[in-house]
């Protein structure tokens, strides 16, 4: 697919080259770390080298003597500055255990990287140097690193102020689960592991905070996905009145969930700006971020699926251990429970039981990472279906097709109680098989198996759906989430006939400026070039719920459409007044109102904007303004789906895995900008494939992060990544006027099981039934060795 950029009055559905790019490709950027403010001081943190310890003393006096050092504080020095601990906005159960999480620890550290003191100096080199002079005495405590050990009797505690390592048990049972299993003709049971990952947005986190100057407000620039949420939460954490805090997310270099949080350093910099009355800046080093920025995944899944004689599914049991790490960050406990709605995926069944235990360990807290709960669930069910198909002796597609929701059955209320509005799994699958040459590759696989080729061919399937577009506020309420899921947009018509669109979403690579311009251009009839989109500053976009969970287009784009529609409704009134016609007699097309049957009697949106600005002559029953606000609350989640197929070559002698072909056919409903959508899928695929093949955050038994830098944590490069073949089917969403579905996370959610299913498929003749992720040569080799010794589960159990 190649870019086109022909001017047209119709913008939605065509590729428009991004408005965002010009400053990014020329280096005229606006990253937080670029900021240099007069008198700005630099902050460095002293972090615990121990996973768990009592802090017996912290002495900053020697640091204060170092060149350039202006101030240094211990956790105790700052303890009075916090109105509350760092927030967890998702108390999933009423009795959820949540440790108090101070930005700087006072007497106990609970993971490697937990902050114990802070140094402020005139330069960042001086601040980093002075950190070495802070003397901290620790009394080591036993580290809790393994979830099963953590909940075994007699386990030491990850937090000695608590009585348990279990934060919560959350359960949801739909249908008669015991009946489903009692009468089953076949049951497949497996344990799968979703390893811990480090999100690694390429821009490290950075925060700048300046004290009040001409306005009585603090200004914070942060590498955040959520400036609006951050503003509210920091106000609560630091006791700063909300109206006295302005948060700006300038250019933000990727997030993937890792910048969807309220971090210790953000609260700390606000407090330091308040104490020191100077602008302050902190930027993490990558290795520091690997300890101090939330990790993702880390879930052990025990799954059982029960079938009838005819291979239809009777029920599914899911029991999860989810590693919270040492503290509950913004949505840590909510991430795994999204699985309660997703393990059933595209399949019909009579019963579903879901139980999730949230466990504390002495590790970096986990939180949302691209997909947040849905990749884990999709991995579990798509691996399980393949295993069941193998046990039942049927083709994996046959078992899927027998059980998935047919296109004529939509809208369909799933066993988990949510309504999938639309979808066509048959169409996406047919297209994927064709593009992949499924039958051809299966035939080759048979030959390669017969010839005993040491490099075996595997074919992996992932037929996925997901729930995104977070979210209908009432559903979030029923899940005890601390806020709603609405989004806001406003449109300001300028006297010159140009328009400003203000959005509550906060993009960091997704291209909202371009896509929102396309939506607004078509809706207002204002040329694409004449639209400016503003975002990411609470003083400009005063209201918003920000960007995560593939929500921006389906909720935020929807709000833009509604706000534009309101402008046009007002403009129609003015047009009728000016043209001396009835509103109903007016047609609106491409920015022009004309009287039906007399196309020459017309006026344009630009003329109307000017007329309303002049306000010499406008209808009596309205204000002289076309501007509008819209706050939309989605009526449902968005359910993109698709079929992904992966062919892997697995060297049975070395364990090396190579992706030979990857086909992704996604159905995300209507599309605003095909090029941006392709980019989202490419990037999503890369992250999901990386989980399958390369990435893992590893801790040793003392709770040290062994993969503590980019040297040891393997983020794939272009040389590792395969070429992707993409196509789309289009089943419009019925729950928003644009017909769109979310796309930000689909590629990640779908791809991990597609790859692992392919690896296992290649090794199936050798008796391998699972391979631990990442499917590194050693994990593959171990699975082969274990299988030849009669153990077929890849080492998971």
């Amino acid at each position, binding site marked *: 697919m190649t870019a086109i950029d022909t001017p047209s009055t119709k913008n939605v559905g065509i590729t428009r080259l991004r408005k965002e790019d010009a400053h990014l490709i020329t280096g005229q950027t606006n990253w937080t770390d670029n900021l240099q403010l007069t008198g700005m001081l630099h902050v460095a943190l002293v972090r615990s080298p121990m996973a768990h310890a009592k802090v017996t003393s912290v002495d900053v006096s020697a640091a204060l003597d170092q060149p350039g050092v202006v101030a240094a504080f211990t956790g105790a020095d700052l303890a009075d500055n916090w109105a509350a601990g760092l927030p967890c906005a998702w108390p999933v159960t009423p009795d959820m255990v949540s440790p108090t999480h101070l930005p700087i620890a006072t007497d106990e550290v609970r993971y490697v990287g937990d902050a114990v003191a802070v140094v402020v100096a005139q330069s960042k080199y001086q601040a980093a140097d002075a950190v070495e002079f802070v003397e901290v005495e620790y009394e080591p405590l036993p580290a809790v690193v393994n979830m099963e050990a953590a909940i075994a009797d007699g386990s030491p505690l990850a937090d000695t102020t608590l009585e348990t390592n279990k934060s919560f048990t959350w359960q949801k049972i739909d249908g008669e689960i015991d009946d489903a299993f009692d009468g089953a003709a076949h049951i497949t049971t497996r344990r799968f592991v979703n390893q811990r990952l480090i999100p690694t947005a390429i821009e490290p986190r950075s925060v700048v905070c300046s004290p009040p100057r001409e306005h009585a407000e603090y200004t914070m620039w942060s590498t955040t996905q959520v400036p609006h949420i951050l503003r509210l939460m920091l106000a609560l954490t630091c006791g700063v009145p909300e109206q006295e805090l302005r948060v700006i997310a300038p250019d933000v270099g990727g997030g993937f969930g890792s910048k969807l949080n309220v971090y210790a350093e953000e609260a700390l910099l606000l407090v330091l700006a308040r104490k020191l009355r100077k602008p302050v800046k902190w930027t993490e080093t990558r290795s520091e971020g690997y300890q101090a920025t939330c990790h993702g995944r880390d879930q052990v899944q025990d799954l059982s699926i029960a079938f009838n004689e005819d291979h239809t599914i009777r029920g599914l049991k899911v029991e999860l251990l989810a590693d919270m790490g040492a503290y509950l960050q913004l949505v840590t406990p909510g991430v795994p429970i999204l699985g309660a709605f997703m393990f059933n995926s595209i399949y019909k069944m009579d019963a579903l039981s879901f139980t999730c235990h949230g466990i504390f360990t002495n590790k970096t807290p986990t939180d949302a990472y691209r997909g947040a709960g849905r990749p884990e669930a999709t991995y579990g069910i798509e691996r399980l279906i393949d295993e069941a198909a193998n046990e039942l002796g049927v083709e994996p597609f046959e078992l899927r097709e027998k059980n998935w929701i047919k296109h004529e059955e939509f809208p369909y209320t799933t066993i988990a109680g949510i309504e999938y509005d639309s979808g066509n799994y048959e169409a996406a699958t047919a297209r994927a098989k064709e593009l992949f040459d499924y039958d051809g590759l299966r035939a080759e696989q048979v030959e390669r198996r017969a010839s005993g080729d040491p490099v075996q061919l595997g074919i992996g399937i992932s037929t996925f759906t997901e729930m995104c577009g977070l979210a209908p506020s009432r559903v979030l309420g029923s899940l005890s989430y601390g806020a709603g899921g609405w989004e806001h947009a406003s449109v300001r018509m300028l006297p010159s006939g140009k328009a400003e669109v203000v959005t509550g979403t906060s993009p960091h690579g997704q291209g909202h400026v371009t896509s929102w311009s396309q939506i607004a251009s078509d809706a207002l009839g204002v040329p694409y070039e004449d639209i400016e989109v503003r975002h990411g500053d609470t003083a400009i976009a005063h209201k918003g719920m920000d960007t995560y969970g593939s929500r921006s287009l389906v909720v935020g784009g929807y709000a833009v459409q509604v706000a534009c529609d309101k402008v046009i409704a007002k403009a129609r009134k003015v047009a009728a007044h000016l043209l001396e016609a009835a509103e109903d007699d007016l047609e609106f097309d491409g920015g022009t109102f004309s009287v039906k049957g007399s196309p020459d009697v017309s006026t344009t949106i630009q003329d109307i904007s000017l007329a309303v600005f002049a306000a010499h002559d406008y209808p009596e029953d309205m204000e002289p303004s076309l501007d509008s606000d819209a706050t939309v609350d989605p009526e449902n989640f968005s359910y993109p789906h698709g079929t992904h197929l992966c062919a892997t070559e697995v060297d049975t002698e070395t364990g090396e895995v190579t992706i030979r072909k990857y086909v992704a056919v996604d159905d995300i409903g209507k599309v605003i900008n095909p090029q941006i959508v392709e980019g989202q899928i490419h990037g999503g695929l890369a992250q999901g494939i990386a989980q399958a093949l390369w990435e893992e955050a590893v801790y040793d038994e003392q709770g040290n992060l062994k993969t503590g830098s980019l040297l040891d944590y393997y983020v794939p490069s*272009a040389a590792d*990544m395969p070429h992707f073949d993409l196509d789309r089917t289009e089943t419009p969403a019925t729950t928003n006027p644009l017909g769109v579905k979310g796309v930000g996370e689909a590629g990640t959610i779908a791809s991990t099981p597609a790859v692992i299913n392919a690896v296992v498929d290649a090794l199936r003749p050798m008796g391998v039934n699972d391979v631990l992720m990442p499917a590194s040569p050693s994990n593959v080799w171990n699975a082969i060795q274990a299988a030849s010794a009669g153990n077929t589960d890849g080492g998971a159990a």
Partner: protein
Amino acid sequence: MTKVEITVDGTSTEHEVEPRLLLVHYLRDVLGRTGTNVGCDTSNCGACTIHMDGQSVKSCTVLAVQADGSTVDTVEGLADPVEGEAGWHPLQRAFHEEHGLQCGYCTPGMIMASKGLIEDNPNPSEKEIRDGLEGNLCRCTGYQNIVKAVQSAAAEMRGDTKVEVEV
């Protein structure tokens, strides 16, 4: 403190610096030329890639004092600022047209590394591009459109009529 003289994007600069100051920090913090980014502390990510005396290097692996007397070119010097889009380097145009960037944080390094790659090999294959950019990480794009952009820019720089590239 040591005095360094470095020509950056055609302008000579002269400052007293600490011997340990990294070139990337010289560019960003001393000169305020923030077009070049920092993405790691282990020289793995390539976000800081610049050209020093015509060679593509990671500016976090060079001390400012080592660059004394050198000519440094960064992404900020690639385009003619007064010309707007018309003044863009073919690589900048290609990254834009092929959607070779999303958040754009890796982009300055990617573009500078790609420039070095094309100068060494004016007609790189897909594999040569992928291997040649191994030291530059992007977390957003999955690399496919970066590869496309480099192919497209290389074609333009060779003077080929602009071909539709399909990778």
